[in-house]
């Protein structure tokens, strides 16, 4: 064996040194893996807490208490003009019909007793009765059992949020009302049913008849505008920048600015919308059209960036192949690059849309936080959107809105999950082509 020389480590020495370092390396690997598991564990715990909290509060929000009353639909009373027009029904005394049924059921007597009984039932009951007659005029002159929502205070009482131990004057439900409620319960007229108001009702100050239909449709209209604007513009921009634009100073500046736009806080886009569309062009406030445009501006950078990444991921050999058989630049892009990049582009678009769906701040700026009872019929009707509706409900004092808020959050989450599922489905369909 020759003398060890400088800079040369004998194999035996090398082996022992490698072995000595092994323990340290393995330990650090184990440690790293543990950190990862802890991180995932914490994330899952938070997610679990969030879901438990939303679902335990939200599921009851899908239900509410109703009372079934035998109403005598007196033709002259409900429809004084006798033409079954909406106006005539509004002039009629729907309230009186419901009230008398309620007094019969509760046995309320005297002015104070009747006043107490009248407060048990929701204001939405009259509208429900009118609508039932409009839908089915043959009910006129008959005695029918109908289900009406109870007032939110009654609802809260039945859910056990109002304690009898509290002195009567501090309670939102007085002793007479409790007596009536108990009587109705004994008669088995009170039921805990799926809340049709939540799904089919629109915004209201009365929590028992407040629903998300208006906000949901507002969200759909806003998203539709957003998608129609942002997707074609984003894809076209990405294609142009990646495939056609000369690589020079100007395109470089454009690129940097697009990337910067992605980091701009969304409320800034709201201010932009306010300044440009409402102040400058004098367009109405609160309309889904402007909401959609503002959200489109907000999601454009996301779509452009992910579309460019998707285009860049298309192997250059495919472009060569197409150009090699004489396809023009545009044909190469349209026939080969775009179809191959489409799954990635769609993923980016769906992420952008999901962001837009959950966005509140920019819409507050353009007035979509307004209290609008009517359900928007077009993109130029005033409306609101789901997250803004949630934001507003979370602000209301009534106990019942807590459940409604969580229920609306669940609807929003389901909407998001549905969108993602559609995206995954579309993507897998496109990818399955080969």
């Amino acid at each position, binding site marked *: 064996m020759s003398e060890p020389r400088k800079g040369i480590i004998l194999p035996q020495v090398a082996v022992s040194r490698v072995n000595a370092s092994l323990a340290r390396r393995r330990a650090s690997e184990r440690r790293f893996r543990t950190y990862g598991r802890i991180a995932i564990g914490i994330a899952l715990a938070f997610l679990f807490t969030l879901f438990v909290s939303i679902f335990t509060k939200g599921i009851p929000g899908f239900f509410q208490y109703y009372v079934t009353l035998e109403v005598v639909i007196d033709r002259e009373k409900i429809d004084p003009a006798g033409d079954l027009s909406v106006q005539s029904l509004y002039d009629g005394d729907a309230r009186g019909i419901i009230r008398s049924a309620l007094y019969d059921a509760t046995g309320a007597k005297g002015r104070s007793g009747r006043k107490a009984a009248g407060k048990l039932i929701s204001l939405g009951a009259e509208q429900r009765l009118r609508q039932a007659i409009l839908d089915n005029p043959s009910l006129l002159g008959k005695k029918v059992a109908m289900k009406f929502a109870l007032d939110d205070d009654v609802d809260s009482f039945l859910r056990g949020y109002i304690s009898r131990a509290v002195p009567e004057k501090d309670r939102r439900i007085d002793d007479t009302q409790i007596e009536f409620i108990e009587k109705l319960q004994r008669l088995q007229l009170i039921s805990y049913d799926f809340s049709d108001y939540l799904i089919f009702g629109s915004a209201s100050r009365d929590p028992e008849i407040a629903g998300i239909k208006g906000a949901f449709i507002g969200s759909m209209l806003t998203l539709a505008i957003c998608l129609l604007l942002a997707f074609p513009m984003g894809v076209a921009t990405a294609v142009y920048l990646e495939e056609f634009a000369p690589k020079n100073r100007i395109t470089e500046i454009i690129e940097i600015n697009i990337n910067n736009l992605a980091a701009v806080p969304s409320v800034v886009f709201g201010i932009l919308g306010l300044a440009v569309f409402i102040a400058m062009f004098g367009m109405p406030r609160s309309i889904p059209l402007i909401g959609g445009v503002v959200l489109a501006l907000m999601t454009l950078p996301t779509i452009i960036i992910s579309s460019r990444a998707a285009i860049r991921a298309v192997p250059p050999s495919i472009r060569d*192949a197409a150009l090699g058989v*004489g396809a023009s630049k545009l044909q190469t892009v349209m026939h080969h690059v775009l179809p191959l990049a489409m799954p990635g582009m769609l993923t980016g678009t769906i992420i952008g849309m999901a962001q837009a769906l959950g966005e509140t701040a920019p819409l507050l700026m353009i007035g979509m936080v307004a209290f609008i009872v009517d359900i928007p019929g077009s993109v130029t009707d005033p409306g609101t959107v789901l997250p803004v509706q949630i934001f507003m409900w979370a602000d209301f004092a009534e106990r019942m809105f807590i459940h409604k808020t969580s229920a609306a959050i669940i609807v929003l989450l389901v909407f998001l999950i549905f969108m993602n599922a559609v995206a995954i489905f579309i993507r897998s369909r496109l990818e399955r082509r*080969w």
Partner: protein
Amino acid sequence: MRAAVEIEPSNLPSFTVGEVYVDTPRMTTRNVNVFYGDKMAIENVTLDIAEKQVVSFIGPSGCGKSTFLRCLNRMNDTIANCRVEGEIKLDDQNIYDAHIDVVPLRARVGMVFQKPNPFPKSIYDNVAYGPRIHGLASSKEELDGIVEASLSRAGLWEEVASRLDQSGTGLSGGQQQRLCIARAIAVSPEVILMDEPCSALDPIATARIEELIFELREEFTIVMVTHSMQQAARISNRTAYFHLGRLVEVGETSTIFTNPKHELTNSYITGRFG
């Protein structure tokens, strides 16, 4: 140990040795220079490409043979800072003239690439793509005929006739490359450029492709870049040796391999470098 040949710029010839000109040229190039930015990749290449022959470009890596090949159908246009000087003519028409449209040019001068690159579409659509975009077929029957004929000429019909609707990317490497050749010949080009068509294939697939090229030279003018001198020797009529951006020597394949005139060519084909 073999002696490395010292390559000084002074070793490079200022002119090309051998037979640059032919009697029946399909394409002619005169004093072609190619630059990538400021860097000169091809210097003063003058070469005739004879009709219905195979010309092989050989030379060490980075010698510019692929660059020069890609000038012949202007595929270099896709490289942002690539600039071509000189004259490249197809039928007395300079293909780098300002008014020349690359679409018909590339329909006439087809290309097969180093790595098989079928479209991620069906075998049928791969071959039918060129005829479709150029409007070559007036009916479905005619298109079917073109697809079948092209696949047959590429020696692939027997293997894929029953599964034309399956993906082209599901074929083996050699089949994919023959599919690419079928795709190229489906638009009836006059010249086919092949950029190391066998370098990604195993020896058996390579043999099939070589056989195919040998057959195709009856009908097409073929320009091929190859790293395999055996391949060049087997299938090409003429061979051109490139070195550091210059065309050092060109001539009949037999002459180049048995009796090279230039010292660099001799060193390369005897395996002293490269």
